[in-house]
Every structure is written in C-alpha cells, then in structure tokens.
C-alpha cells in the first residue's frame, strides 16, 4: 500500500524524519517495503522569471535573461515554444540534476547534470524546464504534461527551490500490512498507528456535511444479506462533473492513480484515505430509482466500466436497479450506470460485502480492482459509515453537487461493527509474554491505540475501537501491548516451567538415516524431485492404458499440465533427472530418491490417499545390471535380510535385463536396465539402470543384526563345477543347494562358461560352497555325504550334472 507522508501529516503531527518513521513502523509490525522519495533525482532547480526573450535568427531558439532571485540573472538559451518575457518557469542552474528526455520530450531517458554551454554559439548558463524534466505530470501540477515549459504562478518567488513548491520533497511509504489489520489499509488507518507509536493525537478526517435540499426517494433492497450485511446510499443532485482541483489530483497521483473527474476522483480519494471502496452511480440511469443487492441469475450479463463483458453465475453478487445489474458488487461498476460528463445526479454507495464472496467472484471472473482487493481483506462498518460522510463533505468542499436528504442505510441481521467491551487480566497477559509490563504503561499504550480503558483491580475493562474487528481475546491485547512496548523487552528464557521430555528420532527415522549413510558410503547421490508430474511422463515410460500407475490423483488447479498429476511411481522422475544430467554433459552418476507416491483408495478422491514411501535408484554411465544389483544386495545386507531376484517384465525395462525383487513372499519392486527403445526416444547416449522398491514394505522386513557365537569347529569349503541347461538361472541352482543341505551357509558363483567343451544348450557353473558345523566338527566323509546329496538333488530336480 502506498502512503504519502504529506497526506499522513493531515491526520497526525509527524516531527521525525521519514527514515525514523520507517524504523518505528517496522518495530510495531508494519514493514515498509520501499521508502520512495519523490523528486529524489531533481536538485538545483529554482523559480526563474524570464525578463527578456529575443529570438535567435534562423533557429527556433530564444535567448533569454532569467531572473533567478538570489542566484542572479542568467542568460539561458531556450527552444520551448511557450517561452516569453514575463513568464515564470523552473530553471535548472549549472550543476543541477534533472531528467533527460527523448526526442518526444515525454520519455524519460535518464538523469542529466546541467553544464555551462553554448547553443549555436550563444552562451547558456542553465536550462528552463518542462514538467517532465523535473518529474512532474499534469496531476502533480497544472501544465505538467505540456511538452514546453512548465509555467509557474506569479506568486512563486524568484530563486526559490522548486521542490517544496511542486511537492517534490515528499516521501511515499510502500507498506506491507498483515492480513489481520485490514483497518490499516488506508491513510487514516495508518495515521492512527503512527499517532500511537509517536504518542501524538490522531486528527479525525472531516466527515461533516449539511443537507441542502430535499430529494426524490431512492429504495434499497438487500436480498443477499449474508454477503452484503450493510448498504448505505446517498443521493446527490445537480452534480457538475469537472476536473478535480490540483490538491486532490496530486494526492491520487502520489498513490499512482490517474485523475478522471471530480466525482469519480472523490470515490478513489476515499478508497485511499479511508480504506472504504465507494461507488457512484449516475442516478438518472437507474431504472425505478431502486437499488437491489442480490446474487446474479445464471448467465445474466454485465459490461463493466472498462468495457469487459461477463456472464455471471449465482455465486456473483450484483448491485441492480429496478431491472438490471448495474455493478459487480465490490469489484467494478457497470457501463450502463457510469458517471459521464452529462451526469447531473448521482447515488453514492458505501457498503460492506463479504470478503470471500468478493474474492471468489474476482477470481472466477478474473476481474480484480483496488476495490475488490480491499473488500477481500475486509472492510469494517465503522468506516463504511464514516466514508459516506467524508464523500458528501468533499462534494460540498469541491462545490460539485447538492447534498440531498435522501440517505438510505440498510443494516441487515448480518451487520455488526467491532465495538465491544472486553475484560482482560494484565496478569494473564504478562504470563503469556513472560515479562512484566507495568499497568500504567499498558493503559497508556492501549489508550494511544484508541482503546477505552478502565482499570479494575488487576483487570482492564476495554472498549474496543469499532474498526478493530481483529481483536478477539487477551492474546490480541498482549500483541498490541508488546508491539508498542517493544520486542526488545522479550528476553530469552528456557521453559523453566515445562516438564522434561525425551527427544530424538523414532526407530523408523533412525533406519532412514542409516540407509542414507549407507548409500552415501556407496557413492550414491541423493536427489529430491517434485511430487507431481505430467501424465506424459507415464507415456514416456510406456505405461499401458490400464496400468495401475495410471490410477493417479489429479490437482484441480495445477501450475501447468506438466505438474498436474500426483506421482504413482518415482521412476519417471528418476529417468528425467538422468536425461537432464546427460544433456548437461554429466556422463555418469549413481542417484537415489526416497520419497512418497500417492495412491488413491477411490477416485474421485474422498478419503486421504495412501502415501507410500518408495526408494528409487538410478545409475547411468559405465555401469552394468550387476552394479545396481550390488547396491541392492548391500541394502539387503544392511537390513540383515536377503533379496530374491527373478526374471521379470516391466514396461520400461529391457525385457532380458529385469528382475523382480522380493524378500520371502513379499514382492518389493523391480530392478533392471532402462529399455533401449526408451533411451533412443529420449536421445540418451548412455545405458541407464533403474530400481524402484516399496520402502514402506521394506522397512517392516528389516531385522536387527544378531550376534552368533563363533563356531568352535572350522568351516569347510568345497568347490563344485556343474553342467546345467543354458536357461537355468543361478538363483534356481543356489536355492536348490541351500534346500539340499542345512549346513550350507554360503553359495558363491565364481565362474560361468558356455562353449564347445560343455556341449550345445549347456553351461558350466562353478560354485564355492561353505559348510558351517554346529555341534561337532565335520569329517571329510560327512562332507562327501553332503555333496552327494546336493548332487543327487541337483540331478533329479534340475537335470544338473557334475562336470
């Protein structure tokens, strides 16, 4: 919100600098995001009177003698078309800084310093300036828009600094007001705060007016009181639309608004000054001299002041006359009842509309305005009432209409203002803050904030100001006190009254930490990617139409299609990360992500979905399947479990290099090589290996490690070279060996051979078997017995021969 210092000064005496005020405001909860100094680029410009003005032959220039008061008479060459003897204009003396303009004399191209120079051989000591050159437009000063010299009134003293005369010594505070203080979204609202923090008196704006004539009645009917609790209308006749006076135009200009005409400007002025959006209808255009506040009928249409046309729904509140919608309540007036040059009578509206109703309509229609922004934050009825008085006061001050006695104020059952009585205990407030604010100080602070205060024993009986709808309990009063008293009084303590609690990680969180430590030791990098992606990411990995991964949750209002689907698998995010790395010239990496997928229990979603934690591993560069499998084996080992691997098919994996990973009966996921066809589609020049496991399931399987006493008897190790059918897997053979002899504790494949020596359709596999004795040492004969049994089983069940 933009707040000119000069305007604030109308309502409170400010005797400190703008910078000091900025610090004070920061301390009491109003952050000044930017402190803008008007005319900060302008210096050394004074009032000058042209005493003589002679044309320079053959040019458009004039050579002038300019009386600059105390600065003397200067000879200045000037090309402006309105230079003449007798006029007064701003003079940039030698050394002055002003804006440099483009050829159009309008566009500001930078700041320049005036130097003594010669134009066409004629010496010139300074420059006569236009409005643009000193940063003044037509709303800041009459004639400011003209591209020739800015003509100054005769009353300006020659040689006087131009800045205070043109309002170029002002400051504008751009203030961030928190959502709980809509009452501060205005000049007067902030003036109240400034008065409190400076210990000064707030001067109420003049809201007085006199009824000059009787008028023809206007009826106001509220059909939607829940979203329009209060509506005040006042009829003004014999209005004379005209340009606004300079003081009013300048105030609007400082806040970034353009002047339109006196009537419209009054409503804008009040929006800025009081924080109450108002509207002025051309009363002659209202059919039936009637205002009806109702929800729009479906498909009803309205064209707003800016010429945009909208088709409405029952969610939209409209202000209608006897027949048709004439305004989008709280957002913008309709074209059909707009104030024009011909307007002769008007109806002022000052009302309160429900903040969520305005917000929903503004969003749904994409139509936002300064008015809707204020209503969305919330206006209070105290101000709604005051603003009408202020508007009528300004009509009379500007002499642009006749205030009638037609004043309709509809207070519905939803109407209320914040004025209320509340008793709070200072002891409780101090207990919450942990400090002692002296009672006298508390009373002074609250009174400075316009609270009525009566001290009753330890309690304070408070009359809450009507505009403070945010005050709800003693905690709010505590906040009012501490923000004025100063947060520097809050000294750190360490919960002396709290019970000791036992903090730390849960077992599950510790396991997660261990996993990450283990992976870091294996040289893996942890990644974190967005929880949402696009349906196209599932297409990318060839997920079939009916695949369970396609059963996803959609975001209703995503940033874009590419972030619109809650993920049901981490693999696409991993593949995208690998592709991004390859495109950036990163040639290899071992990545993993531990994150959730979101699985609906039903669609459309009614209950909270399952959020399942998944572990996804991705390796790219010079790796093989057995590198990713090695990571998985390491993972299993760290959890004191063993994974089973079986050949499997997954839509995004190489059909010959893909394993289903299980532990006992529990299927955990897949590991394999990314389908080369997908690699080609994604222009990946390196192989990639992906694994995705259900971490929620995995963590339930983890076993604590158990110490077993060292065997007193030595282990026996034997090698076996076997000849098996070519398609038999190593896993199947291992399983058979384990089941044939309970003393086998380890089976390690150390060689595999396919070729002539073992025959067509066969392969040789060499294993290293470890036998661990339990209660007695093994004799060589006993081990021979084990081997015999193992070979027998292998022959019978898998058709395996000893080589």
């Amino acid at each position: 919100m933009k707040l000119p210092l000069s305007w604030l000064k109308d309502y409170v005496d400010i005797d400190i600098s703008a910078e000091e005020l900025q610090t004070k405001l920061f301390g009491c909860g109003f952050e000044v995001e930017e402190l803008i100094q008007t005319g900060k680029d302008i210096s050394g410009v004074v009032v000058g009177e042209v005493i003589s003005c002679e044309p320079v032959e053959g040019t458009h220039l004039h050579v002038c003698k300019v009386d600059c008061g105390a600065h003397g008479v200067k000879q200045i060459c000037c090309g402006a078309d309105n230079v003449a003897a007798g006029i007064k204009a701003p003079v940039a003396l030698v050394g002055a800084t002003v804006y440099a303009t483009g050829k159009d004399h309008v566009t500001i191209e930078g700041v320049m310093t005036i130097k003594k120079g010669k134009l066409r051989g004629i010496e010139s000591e300074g420059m006569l300036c236009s409005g643009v050159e000193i940063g003044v437009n037509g709303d800041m000063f009459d004639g400011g828009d003209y591209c020739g010299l800015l003509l100054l009134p005769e009353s300006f003293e020659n040689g006087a600094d131009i800045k205070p005369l043109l309002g170029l010594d002002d400051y504008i505070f751009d203030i961030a007001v928190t959502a709980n203080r809509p009452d501060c979204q205005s000049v007067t609202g902030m003036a109240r705060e400034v008065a409190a923090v400076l210990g000064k008196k707030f001067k109420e704006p003049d809201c007085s007016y006199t009824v000059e004539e009787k008028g023809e009645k206007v009826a106001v009917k509220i059909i939607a009181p829940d979203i329009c609790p209060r509506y005040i209308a006042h009829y003004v006749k014999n209005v004379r639309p005209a340009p606004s006076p300079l003081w009013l135009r300048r105030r609007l200009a400082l806040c970034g608004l353009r002047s339109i005409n006196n009537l419209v400007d009054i409503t804008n002025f009040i929006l800025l000054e009081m924080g109450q959006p108002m509207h002025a209808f051309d009363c002659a255009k209202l059919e039936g001299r009637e205002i009806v506040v109702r929800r729009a009928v479906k498909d009803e249409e309205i064209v707003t002041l800016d010429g945009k046309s909208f088709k409405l729904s029952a969610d939209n509140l409209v202000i209608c006359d006897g027949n048709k919608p004439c305004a989008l309540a709280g957002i913008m007036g309709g074209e059909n009842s707009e104030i024009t040059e011909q307007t002769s009578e008007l109806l002022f509206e000052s009302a309160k509309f429900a903040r969520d109703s305005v917000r929903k309509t503004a969003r749904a229609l994409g139509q936002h305005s300064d008015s809707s922004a204020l209503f969305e934050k919330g206006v209070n009825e105290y101000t709604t009432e005051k603003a009408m008085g202020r508007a009528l006061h300004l009509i009379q001050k500007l002499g642009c209409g006749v205030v009638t006695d037609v004043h309709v104020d509809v207070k519905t059952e939803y109407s209320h203002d914040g004025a209320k009585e509340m008793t709070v205990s200072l002891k409780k407030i101090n207990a919450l803050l942990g400090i002692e604010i002296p009672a006298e100080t508390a009373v002074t602070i609250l009174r400075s904030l316009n609270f009525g205060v009566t001290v009753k024993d330890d309690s304070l009986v408070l009359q809450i100001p009507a505009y403070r709808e945010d005050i709800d309990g003693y905690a709010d009063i505590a906040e009012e006190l501490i923000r004025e008293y100063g947060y520097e009084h809050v000294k750190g303590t360490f919960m002396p009254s709290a019970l000791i609690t036992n903090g730390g990680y849960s077992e599950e969180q510790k396991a997660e930490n261990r996993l990450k430590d283990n992976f870091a030791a294996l040289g893996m990098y942890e990644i974190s990617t967005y929880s949402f992606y696009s349906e196209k990411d599932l297409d990318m990995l060839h997920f079939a139409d009916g695949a369970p991964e396609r059963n996803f949750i959609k975001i209703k209002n995503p940033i874009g299609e590419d972030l619109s689907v809650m993920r049901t698998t981490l693999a696409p995010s991993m593949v995208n990360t690998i592709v991004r790395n390859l495109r950036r010239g990163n040639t290899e990496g071992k990545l993993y992500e531990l994150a959730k997928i979101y699985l609906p229990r039903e669609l459309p979603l009614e209950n909270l979905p399952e959020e399942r934690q998944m572990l996804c591993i991705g390796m790219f560069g010079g790796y093989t399947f057995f590198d990713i499998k090695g990571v998985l084996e390491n993972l299993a080992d760290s959890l004191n479990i063993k994974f089973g691997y079986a050949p499997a098919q997954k839509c995004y994996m190489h059909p010959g290099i893909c394993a289903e990973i299980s532990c006992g009966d529990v299927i955990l996921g897949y590991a394999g090589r990314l389908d080369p066809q997908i690699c080609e589609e994604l222009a990946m020049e390196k192989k990639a290996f992906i694994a995705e496991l259900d971490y929620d399931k995995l963590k339930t399987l983890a076993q604590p490690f158990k110490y077993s006493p060292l065997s007193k008897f030595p282990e026996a190790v034997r090698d076996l070279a076997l000849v098996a059918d070519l398609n038999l897997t190593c896993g199947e053979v291992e399983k058979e060996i384990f089941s044939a002899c309970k003393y086998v504790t380890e089976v390690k494949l150390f060689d595999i051979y396919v070729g002539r020596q073992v025959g067509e359709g066969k392969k040789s596999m060499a294993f290293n078997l470890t036998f661990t004795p339990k209660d007695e040492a093994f004799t060589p004969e006993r081990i021979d017995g084990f081997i015999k049994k193992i070979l027998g089983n292998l022959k019978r069940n898998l058709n395996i021969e000893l080589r």
Partner: protein
Amino acid sequence: MQDKIDQLKKKIADAIKDVHSSDSLFQIKMKYLGKSGEVSELMKGMRDVPKEKRPETGIIINALKSWAEDQFGKLDKSIKDRELKKLYAAEAVDVTLPGNTCKNGAYHPNTLVRRELISVFAGMGFTVYEGPEIENDYYNFTALNTPADHPARDMQDTFYITDNLLLRTQTSAGQIRVMEKQKPPIKILSPGKVYRSDDDATHSPMFSQMEGLVVDRGITLCDLKGMLDEFARKIFGNGVKTRLRPSYFPFTEPSVEVDVSCFECGGKGCRLCKGTGWIEVLGAGMVNRRVLEGCGIDPEEYSGFAFGMGIERIAMLKYGINNMKLLFEGDTRFLKQFKG
C-alpha cells in the same frame, strides 16, 4: 698341507670375485663348504695326517673354514642388499598417481539441514512427527484458525484435489494431528514437504518446512525467544542473535517474524542481508487459544508456542545457493558437493 690350504684359499678368493647373484654364491659355497665340498674333503684328509700334526692341521683348516664362511657371509649380505635395492627400484610407484577410491556419495542439502535441525531440537526434548502431505481442509486451515472466508487463505496459493482435499501448504497441519492425540507436555518437530502454487528463483511449488510446537503449563513468549536464540547459535554460529518483530499468522497470537543477525557480515550490512544486518529465517508465535481449544486442550491451563521455517531457505542461506531450482534438478555437479 699349508700349500694346499693356501691354494684353496686363493681358489675360493678367485671364485667369489665375479659372483653377483645369491644363486651362484650358493653354488660356490656348496662347492667348498658343502658336505662333500673341497674344505670338507680337506677335513676328511685329516686321517692321512700324522697324529702329532693333527691338532695343528685342524686349527689351520678350521681357520680356513671360518675365513671362507666369513667371506661368503659378507658377500651374501652385499648381494642380498643389492638385490633388495633392485627389487625396491623395480617396485617403486608414482605416489602422485590417483588412489583407488570408492567415491564418496552425498546427501541432499535438505537432508543435511533437516538432520542438523533435528539434532538441535532433539537435544531440547523434541520428537519428530511426520504427517500426511495430502490433507483435509480442516487440518490445513480450519483447525489452524483459518476459516473459509479468511484472507490468510490467499497468503498461500493452495493446490486443491477436491473442494475438501488439498496438498498441505504448511507443516502446521501436523500440529493439529498431534495435539488431538497427545496431551501436554508436547514438544514435537514436524518436518516435511509442503506445496504452494508459486514458481520463481526463490519459490518452488514443492518445498520443505520444519514446524516446531511446544505446549505445556506456563510457556511464554520469552521461552520461545530463549529457544530460538539457542537454535540460531547452533545452526548459524556462536554470536548470532535473534530479533523478534510483530507479524501475523492465524494460528498464533502474538505472532512474530524472527530475524537472525547476519552471520556473513556480523550485522554490519552486506549483500546477503541486503544491508540490513538481519536475515529473516522463520515465523513463530504463541499458539492461538482457538487452536488449542479445537484440539481439546484447555487454554486456561496450557499455553504454547509454535515456529516454522523453510528448510530450503536455511539450506540456501547456509550454503550460499542462489537458485532454489538447483535443489530439485538433481544435477550431479551440484549434488556431489554435499558430503555431509
């Protein structure tokens, strides 16, 4: 005999002159000192020596033997030394060649910050609670004193799934779930992912927060300050101070914005703190009594404070990361630096 011995001595001396390997030295040694070597043969020849000359002869032969052993020993040592030197030279490596390492992996910066934060607060008695990311409107807003028409709903642009279900915009949602189940004393940390419809250099539609909540008897704003002071020292370094200033969150009253004194310049003003000497790190406040009431905790008996911070923001500040996007791109050149 003496002649024989002198001859033999000369022979041995000649024989070992050109020996350069321990193998050939061994051969020679065997030839003279072996069981049937020439010196041993001499010994055997003692039988033929007259009895009275035997002791004298024995002494001479033994002298020859020990002389020979000594020669062989010396030579053996020098050959061994030479051979070892050769071996050393042959086996010498360029120690500046790269080592055979298993490359270190790395943690996501969020993981590092999260661990550091948790360890600070765990020491103060906090436990960790993780709530769901897809939440009801009730837990994310209503129970946090943010009813449907509240303007604060606009402070955070929310991703909706249905009218009632949404992606949580704040980990504060987890507070309510804890307070509904657990009665004071409560000291929890609630870290996790949150989502807001925002996307630029300092905002990401997904980011992480860490929420803290304390509810017990007699908890004050000063206690909040004391705990934050400790947090700032541990996370940003000794000497870092905190500053509270008024702010607004629907679920706390009073609410504060917490700044830490700039750990880069020590508060003098620099680029990191934009010349102010202070850096905004988190929002906090005393838990709003309506929030406590809604969870069945009597606000007349208990009070509490809550604080919440952006984990990425802390990570960016700590490590000097200037673009939030980097945290989610998974670029290995970025990732490998965070070794933990």
